């Protein structure tokens, strides 16, 4: 997503609509008072979550690509512009764990470096319609969840980022073999704009479901929502 301030100002009117405005009846400008159209669209979006979860096949892999297909330079994208990227100190950084996890001891960078690694050259598809191909490597999320004793029967994984961004995914997608906690891009540690020191890389979902610079990971049965999801973007957003 771009950092367009106008867009952020539309926060409360996420689902209000232009040309069909007359059909909507009352048009509240506050997210706590969604109008009829907002309610209808939320209902359909929840239905589409369920359809996508049913369509999701844990064994279907996202397409992989040759190294020559990698997009260079990589494309930066966040809810702010690149000069506002928050730089995390890798020596002090740790990932906090919360929710239905047996061993909640925070993980440091060295812990992740010592864990098994997997690499992938996959396509990142943005909700806007563009795509880039990149090479990410890191710790398979399924391995990590088992290692820390997460409740694999829980419904949601919740992610919090250093910049205040947050998102969440379903457990089935979290356990997909290509879902990784990425440390490296093109064989080098992630740079701050691209999620240093640790980001979620999940090629079975749209780009905004790949939160960067993670500071906390939780397992929960309570719907956690997310930065864009709360503004009206479809939660499941599977690819």
């Amino acid at each position, binding site marked *: 997503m771009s950092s367009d301030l106008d867009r952020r100002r539309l926060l409360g009117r*996420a689902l209000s609509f232009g040309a069909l405005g007359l059909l909507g009846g009352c048009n509240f400008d506050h997210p706590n008072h969604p109008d009829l159209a907002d309610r209808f669209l939320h209902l359909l979006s929840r239905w589409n979550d369920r359809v996508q979860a049913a369509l999701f096949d844990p064994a279907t892999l996202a397409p992989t690509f040759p190294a020559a297909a990698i997009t260079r330079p990589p494309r930066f994208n966040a809810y702010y512009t690149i000069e506002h990227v928050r730089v995390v100190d890798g020596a002090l950084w740790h990932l906090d764990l919360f929710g239905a996890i047996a061993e909640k001891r925070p993980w440091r960078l060295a812990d992740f470096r010592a864990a098994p690694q997997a690499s992938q050259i996959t396509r990142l*598809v943005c*909700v806007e*319609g563009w*795509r880039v191909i990149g090479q990410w490597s890191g710790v398979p999320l399924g391995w990590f969840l088992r290692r820390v004793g997460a409740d694999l029967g829980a419904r949601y994984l919740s992610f919090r980022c250093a910049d205040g961004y947050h998102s969440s995914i379903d457990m089935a997608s979290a356990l997909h073999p290509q879902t990784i906690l990425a440390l490296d891009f093109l064989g080098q540690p992630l740079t701050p704009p691209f999620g240093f020191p640790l980001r979620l890389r999940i090629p079975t979902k749209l780009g905004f479901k790949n939160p960067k610079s993670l500071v906390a990971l939780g397992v929960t049965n309570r719907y956690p929502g997310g930065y864009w999801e709360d503004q*009206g973007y479809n939660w499941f957003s599977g690819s």
Partner: protein
Amino acid sequence: MAARPIHPWPLRLMHWLNALALVIMIGSGWQIYDAHQLFRFTIPPSITIGEWLAGAIAWHFAAMWLFVLNGLAYLVWGTASGHFRRRFLPLSPRAVLRDLWLAATFRLPHRPGRYNAVQRLLYLGVLACGTLSIVTGLAFWKPVQLWWLSDLLGGFRETRFLHFAAMSGIVAFLVVHLVLVAAVPKVLAPMITGGRLHEESVP
């Protein structure tokens, strides 16, 4: 049998449901297009639906159910009732050329309940575009789960161009459709009331 409707009620119902679905699908699709343009033009936001990308996507993926389910009902009804066979067939290139020439020289008569060869071609064409829009839309929405469909259509970016092409075909049809209704306004009422068709004018 003295008379039967020009447009039976299931057809009228599906026609107007489809009109609603198309307006929402196209309007929200244009807003989605603007988020990442394929060509060097922006579609004026004033004629789009959804106000911003999230709203447009929500509308697009809500109305798609109406568009697809209504379209499936139409296919089943059209096949089972014989509507397709009666209205769209036979169709030959020679008949299309003949009727095009008659239309160009303003000698093509309007016969209620009966489509000329050009109309048949246009209706079949827009049905093909509608089908293409759904297939390409599915492939662009689910390039991982439906990777085989995405591959079949030429790849991820290609499906987006094809989706745009299908929309363009539908919009081109709608322009012709609406211009013709404006030119021959008496065809509008039967699409609402059903109209009455006398047996002698039935093919």
